């Protein structure tokens, strides 16, 4: 009796496992199908951008779209470059990006060091106060900052694009956390050896926090590349215009009969540096982003 029960049970189990493997296989196929379909949807705008940017205007205007250009028109890219004056825009943006990143790194490193390693009265209150400002939407600052920079006579200069955003409480916070992980013993040993605070910061703490500093650099550069609202407000002349703003200015019409191939070529040119950065520095971007939750 007991034997029969066990065999029945085993038989059932066998049926059950084959059924489960079949269901498992179906689920797996569905999962891959879902992911690949979603992946194609996510990538489609990029493909369409490149596809359109290489077409002739006549081909773009065909009522039945072509999924690969018949005549590859690289000249669209040259047209886009001159129409939008992209050379100047790229230079302006690079200049603002590089200068503001360097200055911002120096300021962030110094203050993160003070918050992480030095003792002074009111340190915790000051730090909490700084963190509290992170909750306030940037628009609230912009209203007054616009008057401030106007009064300072900074409108249409590089200064106005660089100085107001040099300090980021978030970057200070990020770097301070990193600095705090460096063991105290190292600091004390350096002190015993008579190393100055500043030398210790340069020789020990900065090299040890290099990954965070790289993340900050990338986010800051991407921020300069993508910034739109502030540059449009305060530096919208030909000499200082930034790339996003310039792109929108050069192609004002979004609907109607637009020369889309050239417009898409310009969009591709503006997007290209971001993709290059992404390909080579993906690890740092993803790490920085997962801790920040902000774009740039």
């Amino acid at each position: 009796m007991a034997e029969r029960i066990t065999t029945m049970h085993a038989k059932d189990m066998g049926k059950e496992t084959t059924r489960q493997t079949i269901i498992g296989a179906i689920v797996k196929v569905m999962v891959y199908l879902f992911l690949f379909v979603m992946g194609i949807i996510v990538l489609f705008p990029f493909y369409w951008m490149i596809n359109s940017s290489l077409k002739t205007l006549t081909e773009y205007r065909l009522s039945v779209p072509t999924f690969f250009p018949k005549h590859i028109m690289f000249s669209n890219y040259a047209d886009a470059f001159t129409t939008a004056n992209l050379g100047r825009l790229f230079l302006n943006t690079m200049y603002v990006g590089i200068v503001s990143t360097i200055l911002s790194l120096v300021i962030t490193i110094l203050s993160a060091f003070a918050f992480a390693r030095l003792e002074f009265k009111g340190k915790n209150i000051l730090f909490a106060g700084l963190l509290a400002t992170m909750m306030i939407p940037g628009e609230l600052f912009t209203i007054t900052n616009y008057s401030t920079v106007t009064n300072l006579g900074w409108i249409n200069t590089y200064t106005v694009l660089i100085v107001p955003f040099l300090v980021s409480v978030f970057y200070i916070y990020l770097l301070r956390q990193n600095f705090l992980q460096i063991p105290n013993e190292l600091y004390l040993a350096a002190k015993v050896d008579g190393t100055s605070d500043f030398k210790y910061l340069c020789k020990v703490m900065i090299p040890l926090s290099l990954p965070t500093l790289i993340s900050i650099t990338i986010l800051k550069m991407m921020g300069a590349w993508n910034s739109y609202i502030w540059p449009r407000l305060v530096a919208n002349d030909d000499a200082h215009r930034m790339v996003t703003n310039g792109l929108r200015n050069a192609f004002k019409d979004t609907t109607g009969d637009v020369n889309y191939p050239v417009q898409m070529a310009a969009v591709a040119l503006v997007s290209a540096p971001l993709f290059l950065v992404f390909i080579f520095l993906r690890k740092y971007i993803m790490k920085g982003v997962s801790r920040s939750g902000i774009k740039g």
Partner: protein
Amino acid sequence: MANNSMVESRHPWKAWVYLAPALVLLLVFTVWPIINTVRMAFLENYSGLKAAGGAHFRFGIGNFKKVLEYKRFLQCMKNTVIICFLTVPISTMLALLISVALNSIKWFQKFLQTVFFLPYVTNSIAIGMVFAAMFNIVGSFYGTENELIVTAGIINNVIEFFGGHAVNWINYGSTYAANITVMVIYIVWNALPFKILILLGGLQSVNKQYYDAAKVDGTSRRRIFTRITVPLLSPMIAYVVITGFIGGFKEYTSIVGIFGENMGPADDKGRLNTMVGFIYDSLSTNSQGRASAAALILFGLILIVTILQLWVSKKKVHY
């Protein structure tokens, strides 16, 4: 320890030297704006231009009243709220599904992860222009009788391929619902990478033992998802929902990307303007009082929604 503090506190002024550059800039560009913006919000009809001319302004809540009476502001608020409440749930659900799917596979996992992160490193104006091109109908599309459509745009081509009718998404004469649909699609596309990154990170740090135990018990997939995955992920879900709402309330550039600075189709400019857009419009007409009041209302809304969500997540989130 005593030794330690002695070493560190020998020159307490040194810390202030290190902090000086940051503090000076913060005072000018962060602390002063907070004080000044609140001040301007409560000075009725404050205008920077008139203030420079020596005008005085009465203290009161007139700016807030005026802003809330503006039809344009209410439209901006409506757009912002609709966009928020549509895009955040949709993008969170999709991101959750994609992350769970990504977490369950081995082949192509790294590759697909990269693909799904790609929209993050884009310029929202630039890619908005691509979306506009995909939805745009090229032709003399002005509701005239001899409508001439040169090309209906790839999205309409796809709809027609599956037997549907072309929709006027963003052109002259398009409906509000069509406009919002385009915006929701674009914003969800834009919001997915960050949410997937966070949720997948959360899933990968979940202890495998829970799943092994569920397997031994023969728990069904759906039950595993609702009873194990979602509760264990709830802190990350709460995080992406809260940051999603904060970002949604500040939505502006993605609309400029698609509709340009008209913020709407050619026949109804400003139809899709948002609260942030309203603030900048007021600023460009030198009505700082009104802009400040609108900014404080925006801040208040963000604060309320965040506090509500924190309160809900305190009850529902398993830490």
